[in-house]
């Protein structure tokens, strides 16, 4: 199908050199003349009334310019439901809570000043378990939420799932629990705020949503959006954590406004662990049924999410959680309800996969169990139920391209599904379904690109699409270079300044290569249209006969005749009434905002994948070793093979951590493992050596050159695939993440005990050696 010269090749990311050599400038590297250092004083209590704050000694400390508390500032609330005060005045609801902020001439002075602030708290009863928080006698966290329920409900019904399940030949039901996970961005949070004399704010930020941030800040600070400019330096990781505008960012601006100086706030690593958002823990109750032939009949799912103390974008994750539950396989009857519950835990946010990893952990383990019950091979069972191209799912998703069956088949074959296994070895597989053509969670799902080709044939793409390390810049540059026939080195992307670049909703939902890629094509095609007449004239042929590649225009019928593109541009440019080559596009995908009943074609296309894994479980320590990992992804079309492999590998690593080791340990509202030593993110040495990644190109008609979004997909099925492999190896199934050695061993022991008990009935007492 190809014929492409750049698209589909392996290209190092545009920023690879800068990052590898240390030349890249991250937020922590940026400082301004006269800049002050901001620090935040946070609550020591998960729930308490603030009775009095005394800042006099802090203010008297040399070097201190400004001390802010809630009663000294006028500032709007943050969050998707506006329930999150920037500075807490009457009450604190979790240990992250910002009680005061200080700006001083040095970081040490700001820290010292924070330590000198006296606060009188009256501790209140607190609640840390969402189920307990739902009890009538539970402490109330927000005055306007008497039941501790976030006032935003998620309910979806299609058909009659309860009846369908009741009439099923086989039913599996279970409760699954997932943990707090944190993003572990290598760059801890930062914000740098500066006002110019006219009162215009420049916020240097690692946000994923620069244009939404403009309005968040304008609302919080009570200034017009035109007076907020957002600059983004190189961003050292986001993974969803920067979809919200956070209190520290507003605090940097408030401190800057009150001190009249630029103010920078940097998190320490410990602060990052304690204060950055988390993936929300969920309690998922699910039942799935199938008929005698192994066709799914219906599914019922109820989920309870630990929202923590405030509501971020994370509270909308049930939308994306549901897509996998309702639409990975053909299902005619589905019912779903999700409830987000306030607790005094640190609040949860958005995180790669956006609820789908949690949901898929449940539903793909149920698929496995159901296959066993029905006596059908789990791969065959999935293929029997897999979605087909050109179908519509219960939520009204229009699946156009769909290579799920090929993904399942490839993953199973490559992992050696039917090959013999040694003792304690097992294989597992899991599929996944995710948005692959944007995700309309906001009124616009669009991205703007302005492309400008200069008289040296250098192409600049100006866009609001943010690069957070996914390689989206490189993909955009490759698409533009392919389309205009330019070498990749002729293209640069400028996307770090809301004053310069056109609007984009933000980087989320695996959308950027798809949406910004389409916007790029729209913009450069306009240039192409303007350029072709000049080429045709120069080559003495019709426009149809012109090809652009390798930096020149060529006559298709006479390869000896060509003209450098830069020469064409100069010819058009340097003359009276010359012409400039600029193109622009505001691409908004053909997808829909979901209605309150959670229906609507939320994405312009959907991505599918299957992961298969071979594990060995140590039956005496519970440690799981991954011997082989195979990922097969329907990505539509490979744009940058190297970047794609990096995205999948990274997601697999994050997914294995989610499955086996990562957990922010929060006890009594407090984080107990705020360091990389005790938060078990995996290292290179822990990752499987044998990882295979396969791409299946289903050539999506809506995608740029056929591509679909992919960057979350690699995380989503990983935990379920590993859970299924552990089941295969040990005979026991884990319902709780992470599947740590300790919990695997406990499950094995419980399973042995069960087996022993049933044996006892037949053979009488036995003594077991070693105990």
């Amino acid at each position, binding site marked *: 199908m190809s014929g492409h010269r750049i698209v589909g090749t392996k290209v190092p990311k545009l920023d690879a050199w800068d990052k590898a050599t240390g030349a890249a400038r991250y937020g922590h590297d940026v400082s301004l003349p006269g800049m002050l250092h901001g620090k935040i*004083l946070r609550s020591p209590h998960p729930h308490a009334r603030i009775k009095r704050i005394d800042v006099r000694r802090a203010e008297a400390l040399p070097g201190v310019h400004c001390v802010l508390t809630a009663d000294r500032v006028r500032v709007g609330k943050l969050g998707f439901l506006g329930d999150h005060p920037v500075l807490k005045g009457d009450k604190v609801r979790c240990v992250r809570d910002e009680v005061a902020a200080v700006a001083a001439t040095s970081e040490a002075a700001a820290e010292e000043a924070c330590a000198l602030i006296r606060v009188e708290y009256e501790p209140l009863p*607190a609640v840390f378990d969402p189920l307990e928080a739902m009890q009538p006698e539970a402490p109330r966290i927000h005055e306007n939420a008497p039941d501790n329920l976030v006032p935003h409900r998620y309910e979806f019904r299609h058909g009659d799932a309860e009846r369908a399940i009741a009439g099923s030949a086989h039913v599996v039901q279970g409760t699954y629990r997932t943990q707090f996970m944190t993003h572990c961005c290598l760059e801890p949070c930062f914000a740098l705020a500066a006002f110019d004399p006219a009162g215009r704010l420049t916020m240097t930020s690692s946000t994923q949503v620069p244009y939404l941030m403009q309005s968040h800040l304008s609302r919080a600070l009570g200034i017009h959006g035109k007076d907020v400019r957002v600059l983004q330096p190189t961003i050292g990781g986001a993974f969803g954590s920067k979809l919200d505008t956070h209190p520290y960012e507003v605090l940097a601006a408030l401190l800057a406004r009150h001190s009249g100086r630029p103010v920078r706030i940097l998190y320490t690593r410990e602060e990052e662990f304690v204060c950055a958002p988390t993936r929300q823990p969920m309690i998922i109750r699910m039942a799935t049924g199938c008929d005698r032939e192994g066709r799914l009949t219906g599914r019922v799912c109820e989920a309870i999410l630990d929202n923590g103390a405030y509501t971020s974008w994370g509270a909308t994750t049930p939308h994306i959680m549901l897509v996998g539950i309702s639409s990975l396989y053909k299902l005619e009857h589905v019912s779903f309800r999700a409830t987000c519950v306030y607790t005094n835990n640190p609040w949860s946010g958005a995180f790669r996969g956006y609820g789908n990893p949690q949901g898929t952990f449940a539903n793909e383990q149920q698929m496995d169990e159901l296959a066993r019950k029905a006596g059908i091979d789990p791969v065959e069972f999935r293929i029997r139920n897999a979605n087909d191209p050109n179908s519509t799912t219960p939520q009204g998703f229009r699946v156009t391209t769909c290579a799920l069956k090929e993904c399942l088949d490839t993953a199973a074959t490559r992992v050696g599904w039917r090959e013999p296994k040694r003792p304690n070895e097992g294989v597992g597989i899991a599929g996944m379904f995710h948005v692959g053509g944007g995700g309309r969670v906001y009124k616009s799902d669009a991205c703007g690109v302005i492309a400008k080709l200069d008289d040296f044939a250098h192409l600049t793409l100006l866009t609001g699409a943010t690069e957070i390390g996914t390689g989206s810049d490189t993909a955009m540059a490759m698409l533009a270079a392919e389309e205009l026939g330019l070498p990749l080195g002729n293209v640069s992307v400028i996307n770090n300044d809301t004053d310069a670049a056109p609007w984009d909703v933000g980087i989320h939902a695996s959308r950027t290569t798809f949406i910004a890629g389409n916007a790029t094509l729209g913009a450069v095609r306009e240039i192409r249209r303007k350029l072709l007449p000049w080429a045709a004239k120069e080559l003495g042929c019709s426009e149809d006969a012109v090809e652009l590649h390798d930096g020149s225009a060529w006559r298709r019928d006479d390869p000896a005749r060509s003209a450098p593109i830069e020469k064409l541009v100069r010819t058009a440019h340097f003359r009276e009434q010359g012409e400039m080559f600029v193109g622009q596009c505001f691409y908004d995908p053909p997808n829909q905002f979901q209605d309150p009943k959670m229906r609507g074609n939320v994405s312009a296309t959907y991505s599918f994948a299957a992961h298969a894994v071979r594990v060995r479980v140590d039956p005496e320590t519970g440690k799981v070793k991954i011997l082989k990992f195979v990922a097969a992804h329907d990505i539509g079309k490979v744009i940058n093979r190297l970047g794609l492999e990096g995205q999948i590998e990274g997601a697999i690593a994050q997914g294995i951590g989610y499955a086996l080791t990562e957990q922010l340990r929060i006890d009594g509202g407090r984080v107990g493992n705020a360091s990389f030593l005790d938060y078990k993110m995996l290292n290179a040495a822990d990752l499987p050596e044998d990882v295979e990644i396969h791409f299946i190109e289903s050539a999506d008609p809506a995608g740029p050159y056929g591509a679909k979004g992919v960057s979350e997909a690699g995380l989503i099925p990983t935990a379920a695939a590993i859970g299924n492999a552990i089941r295969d190896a040990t005979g026991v199934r884990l319902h709780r993440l992470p599947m740590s050695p300790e919990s695997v061993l406990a499950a094995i022991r419980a399973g042995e005990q069960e087996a022993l008990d049933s044996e006892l009935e037949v053979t009488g007492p036995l003594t077991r050696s070693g105990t």
Partner: protein
Amino acid sequence: MEACATHGPSASAGGRVFRAALPPFEYLAATSVPEALRLLAKFRGRAVLLAGGTDVLVQMRTGKRVPEAVIDIKRVAALGGGVKVERGGRIAIGALTTLADIEHDAKLRRLVPLLPEAVATMASPQVRNRGTIGGNLCNAAPSADTAPPLLALDALVRLHTRKGVRTMPLAEFFTGPGRTALGTDAVLGAILVPKPPRGLRAAFRKHGVREAMECAVVSVAVAVAKERGTIRHARVVLGAVAPTPLRVPAAEALLVGHPGGPLDLLAAAGEAADAARPITDVRGSSDYRRDVVRTLVRRALEEVAG
């Protein structure tokens, strides 16, 4: 549901601030043992010695240690000296010898491979380049990875005090988590490993969630020497399951005089599990740790005594 009045700082403190800056301290670099001892005496317990700093700096940053002075001993030649085999076969290891040097030392790999093997499981290459064996022992973490192998090898430590040089068994050196016989006015000079008994076979096992950058949840070192099919010498040592690294004489007694058959090993492993006094923390529950002790001791013994 839990009332939270019981934990957290007192109501008078304003709350929590995450400090990036180290608290102020005086930095002093000693060039000789007497000078280091003099400085220690001057600060009377309010100074900390600095070797590789891979424990000290972490502790200072997290506020676990707020010393008035940091006394750098890296340039004290008498504490270095690397690995030397003395006449008679005893091995002397200077306290400042880095973990990386121990890992790669040809003599140690030949004479007591147990130690370099254990060291290779520690931290990461970067930390091993910096961290020292003396620092690992003096930091006295119950999970210190050089302790079980050295105890299994009956190591001694040489301490310098103002009264002179003193040698004591490493087994008596550890007095509690983070506490040693050093007190506040002594310096560890060297670790002495006696010539191992003829035919000694030893093994180290470490259990953690990760393959590197991992504190042991449980570690085990065993050493066994047999004569004509009978175990004549046995050491069973556990890490991370008691306030100090723990030798288990009861397990050793079950091995000595026996051939080391499967039942002997199981019995010794059971004894080790009983002797363990693990705590429950973020790294593992006490029951789990005990369970893993049993498994690791048995497996380590199978390797060396089977």
